[in-house]
């Protein structure tokens, strides 16, 4: 009977310890990453490859989601705004909402699904088939050869993707606003341009760079530490996507509340 009293505190203790251990491991991995980032050799060709894979190949996904997000935002704000006769704020809120928040967050989450998963599965497969060991025996540091190019590529790509997502998202709002909600095209564009300021866009881009880092770093970390065959590859892929998504939303809140509230 007494034994059952301990079950809950034991479970809590175990998961706390586990969490501390993984934070420690992530910190060590991060330290290795930073050291590798600044010491030669640099694998420029891998970086270019990854820029194509992570950045360029994500364009369709990001463009489509941005378009629909902008469109639905216009519809919803029209409904909300019309309750107190403020339908005219649609253009402004779509512009601010997309550039400050939804552009980077949606792009980040889409990249978490697309890129974290593929990076993690690829590196985990290399781990379980001993390709990472083979790299080491061929005098190649896997951190420099695999991790640095992927993380750099994501940090560079995501802000560029977000600029495109911003433009397409605002266009989505514009299309819905002018075609179904009956706004006049010239005034919609004027309202949009009047409200947006440089720092709105910049704050979104800085977030995007942070999200890009999270996406690739989590993919690499979970792939690199994968164990246990095909099942392990699957597990690390799930972990990569879930942890990247949570970290994106959490860091989004922290960044917004600390830095970008003005």
């Amino acid at each position, binding site marked *: 009977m007494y034994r059952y009293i301990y079950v809950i505190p034991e479970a809590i203790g175990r998961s706390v310890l586990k969490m501390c251990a993984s934070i420690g491991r992530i910190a060590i991995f991060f330290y290795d990453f930073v050291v590798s980032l600044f010491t030669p*050799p640099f694998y420029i060709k891998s970086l270019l490859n990854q820029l194509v894979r992570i950045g360029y190949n994500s364009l369709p996904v990001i463009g489509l989601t941005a378009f629909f997000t902008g469109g639905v935002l216009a519809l919803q704000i029209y409904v909300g705004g019309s309750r107190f006769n403020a339908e005219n704020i649609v253009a402004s809120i779509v512009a601010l909402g997309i550039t400050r928040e939804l552009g980077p967050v949606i792009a980040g989450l889409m990249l978490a699904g697309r890129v974290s998963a593929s990076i993690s599965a690829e590196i985990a497969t*290399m781990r379980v*088939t*001993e*390709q990472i*060991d*083979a*790299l*080491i*025996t*061929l*005098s*190649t540091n896997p951190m420099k050869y695999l991790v640095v190019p992927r993380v750099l590529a994501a940090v560079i790509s995501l802000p560029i993707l977000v600029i495109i997502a911003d433009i397409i998202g605002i266009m989505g709002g514009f299309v819905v606003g002018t075609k179904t909600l009956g706004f006049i095209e010239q005034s919609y564009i004027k309202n949009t341009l009047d409200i947006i300021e440089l720092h709105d866009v910049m704050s979104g881009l800085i977030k995007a760079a942070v999200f890009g880092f999270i996406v690739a770093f989590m993919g690499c970390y979970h792939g690199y530490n994968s164990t246990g065959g095909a099942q392990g590859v699957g597990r690390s892929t799930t972990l990569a996507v879930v942890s990247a998504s949570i970290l994106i939303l959490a860091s989004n809140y922290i960044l917004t509340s600390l830095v970008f509230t003005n």
Partner: protein
Amino acid sequence: MDHILKINELSKSFGDKSVLDNLSINIERNKSQVIIGGSGTGKSVLLKCILGLIEPDGGEIFFNQQILNKKNRADIDFHSKIGMLFQGAALFDSLNVQENITFGIKKLDSNHVNLTEIAVDKLKKVGLDSSVLCLYPSELSGGMQKRVALARAIARNPELLFFDEPTTGLDPIMADVINNLINEVIEEVGATAITITHDMESAKKIADNISMLYKGAVIWTGDAVDINSSNNPYVDQFIKGSSEGPIKINPND
């Protein structure tokens, strides 16, 4: 005697499962050392400890009289002096055959050696021709993958070679080509080879010395020619391939 590698009392456990148990072995320079032993006795783990891919729990490894640890491996550039054939080939599946074979060469000297020529030359040694140069590992048969991996291991002309089961998965004729190749790198290049194998034919053909591993320790070492007269019941059972003898097949072990 001139030893290229000395291993003293190496031990390694995974959890509470002891895999290497105070294992000691010395490897003579410019000789072919074969390691035999049952499945799961720690042969691959031993190689990985030497290579620094697994951190041993205890013991010391000396390479050319210098101790090998994490720091020292980098200092003496240990990995550029060795070649390793992994049991599962471990080819890079995003790179084609030529890029796989010459992967380590780019890192050694950047003055433009002709990489295609090197790749074709090494392929010929493992019984393949240049038609596979542009294929990817997934397009090769298992035995071909093994041979490409072997070509990659010898591509940098290392002084110390590790072969983890080089002839498993090969037909008998191809296995003999590989046996000859191993003899050739030792005689012509002056390298040292450490080969793990279950293939007693191959062991007799390539070995100068043979050691037998059992439960994570070396239980017999000797000249290859003495293997049939070892008077060691474990060795006798192993080379006869009999299920009767001191080595018990216990699935819970």
